[in-house]
């Protein structure tokens, strides 16, 4: 079991500095680990960035990687979680010919059933947006493929953890 690879969501709270993305991705690159997806954004704390990194490794590996990430001077704290520990989403967009919306009735049903949202429509094309789990996004992609997709893009995973991550307390402790 120990050697079994599984998906882990890594959450890293950092200072917002140039070069840190490079420093963190190098930790994976050096160990020959492929990053499945990576997202960087603001966090709940002003001035603190949050990385969400998805990797497929063993638990032993991810523990060591977390140690290496936390060792970086500008990293405040890093965590790893399994899918069960998080609420996670991806987002995707499709660009599709507008004609199809009227010619193929099936498309309208797909949009309805998948809870996708039409972002914009014009004479040439319409843009569809869908947020959800990877399987839902992939299902929608498969269904729409039959009709022809002009463009497709999918974001990296973003995830909220069920457990608390006490970053604010940590930062307050620094000033006391």
């Amino acid at each position, binding site marked *: 079991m120990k050697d079994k690879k599984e998906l882990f969501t890594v959450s890293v709270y*950092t*200072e917002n*500095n*140039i*070069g840190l993305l*490079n*420093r963190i991705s*190098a930790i994976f690159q*050096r160990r020959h680990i492929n990053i499945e997806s990576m997202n960087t954004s603001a966090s709940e704390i002003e*001035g603190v960035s949050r990385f969400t990194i998805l990797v497929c490794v063993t638990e032993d590996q991810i*523990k*060591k990687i977390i*140690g*290496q990430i*936390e*060792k970086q*001077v*500008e*990293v*405040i704290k890093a965590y790893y979680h399994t899918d069960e520990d998080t609420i996670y989403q991806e987002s995707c967009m499709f660009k599709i010919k507008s004609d199809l919306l009227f010619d193929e009735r099936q498309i309208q049903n797909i949009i309805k059933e998948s809870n996708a949202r039409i972002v914009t429509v014009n004479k040439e094309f319409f843009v569809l947006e869908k947020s959800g789990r990877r399987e839902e996004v992939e299902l929608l992609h498969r269904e729409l493929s039959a009709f022809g997709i002009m463009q497709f893009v999918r974001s990296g995973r973003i995830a909220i953890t069920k457990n608390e991550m006490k970053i604010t307390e940590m*930062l307050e402790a*620094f*000033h006391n």
Partner: protein
Amino acid sequence: MNLQTVKIAKAENQNSERISGSEAIIKCLLAEGVDVLYGYPGGAIMPVYDELYKYQDKIHHVLTRHEQGATHAAQGYARISGKVGVAIATSGPGATNLITGIADAQIDSTPMVCITGQVPSHLLGSDAFQETDIVGISTPVTKWNHQITKASEIPEVLAKAFYIAKSGRPGPVLIDITKDAQFEEFDFKYEKCLGIRSYEPTPTLNEKDIISAAELINSAKKPMIVWGQGIILGQAETELKSLMEKAGIPAAWTILGASAIPTSHPLNVGMVGMHGNYAPNILTNKCDVLIAIGMRFDDRVTGNLASYAKQAKIIHFEIDPAEVDKNVKTDIAVLGDAKESLKSILPKINNNNHSEWVQQFKDLYAIEYEKVIKKDIYPTKNGLTMGEVLKEINNQSKGEAAIVSDVGQHQMVACRYAEFNTSKSNITSGGLGTMGFALPAAIGAKMAAPERDVVAIIGDGGYQMTIQELGTIFQSKVPVKIVVLNNEFLGMVRQWQQLFFDKRYASTELVNPDFVSIAKGYYLEAKKVTKREELASAVAEMMACKDAYFLEVCVEKEDNVFPMIPSGASVSDIRLE
């Protein structure tokens, strides 16, 4: 920089003054107590050199012959003094030439700050002349790095650089400064960095871990200590000695831990690892409690992990949480500074002497002495051995010299046989194994400790990788003693070829120049020894010389270093021949 992210020492009475970025750099260095820096000028760093010219009575710049030499000199300086070494170079090739030394300092936890010039900020990313992405290149081999494009950032960033380089587990920091930031004038005020909110240099000691570690040590029948450089970096030599003596625990060292405890101490049982001593390697797999202090279980120490100390409970005293359970699973991890941790565990340790257990180390040493050591230091064959040269240096320096070794066979011999009375006396490239390290590192070491004899022991291969630093030694009048042990081979690789590649000596034989003439070309005193009867007097002449001295000793061409743990084998499979 956001003030909320760092703690600074407020300099209330200090008025700001309007100066250039380059002058600010010098003032920052002075404020951090830097008295010497090693470097090489060039276009993008010229404003700083112009200030160095003005401040030459306050700060000494040593012109090396290659930027790699500047980093190794800064490392030698740092390793013998415990202070931060500083290297400086221009952009592009100047900066990339620093990388080997930076990588070496990173893996050997050496505090160093490197300052590089960079093309003006408006040219960044334009493939300008001598532009290279040194921040990108140095990222994986620095503890921290940063690019400055505005003069006003200089004081804060340099304060952070010194704080990061020397705190916690030390390491190299690179600061890249664009040329326009060096020229720009601003209101300068220097405030030292006292803390960074995202960085915890030293973990807080946990009393519970101390108690459980003490219990385990007290209950041990066959305990063994393996200490590393953490003892030296943490200045915990006295505490380690007290622990060894109070609990009667035999203690062995990693290559970078050498000299922390005097060689002659009865509980100092020698070096662990690939070419370490027989007893501590064999008994690693016999002890019941292995107490690792300030070391990282490098593969050259552990051999095959699957058969490393499996019978033992492991206690790991360590400052860097990422090292715990990285290679060897520990039973008790004591996170924190070595000195503080050992201080708090000492009162909880019972007096003990494991005399039967200690005797086992002595018995195995006797075997190693008969099979290996005697032949090395009192050879009966014609050719000179590296071991007898070390023995002679020991005799004449009485263990007071600092030994700076390069990488290869001579390094293993130097670390095995050099006798040390004081800490911080063994300076070598451990983790990275950087050939060419010793000659420039000896320059830095001698300058940081001018009162000490600094003897560089170098092979004929590594010597030629940074031989140009003889120019630095001559120009800056650094009285180092240089011993080249010449076997006309890349000896360690040749040894492996002999043992594991059926003696196919691919590209390991060296056709060497006349080293004495080269040294004399740099106006150094120089001598060559080829016979045993000449050795003692030549070493005496070298030790007595007030200036730099070069001694070439022609040793047996195909001697091997033993004991040896073959790559991938267990520590207890160590071979004596």
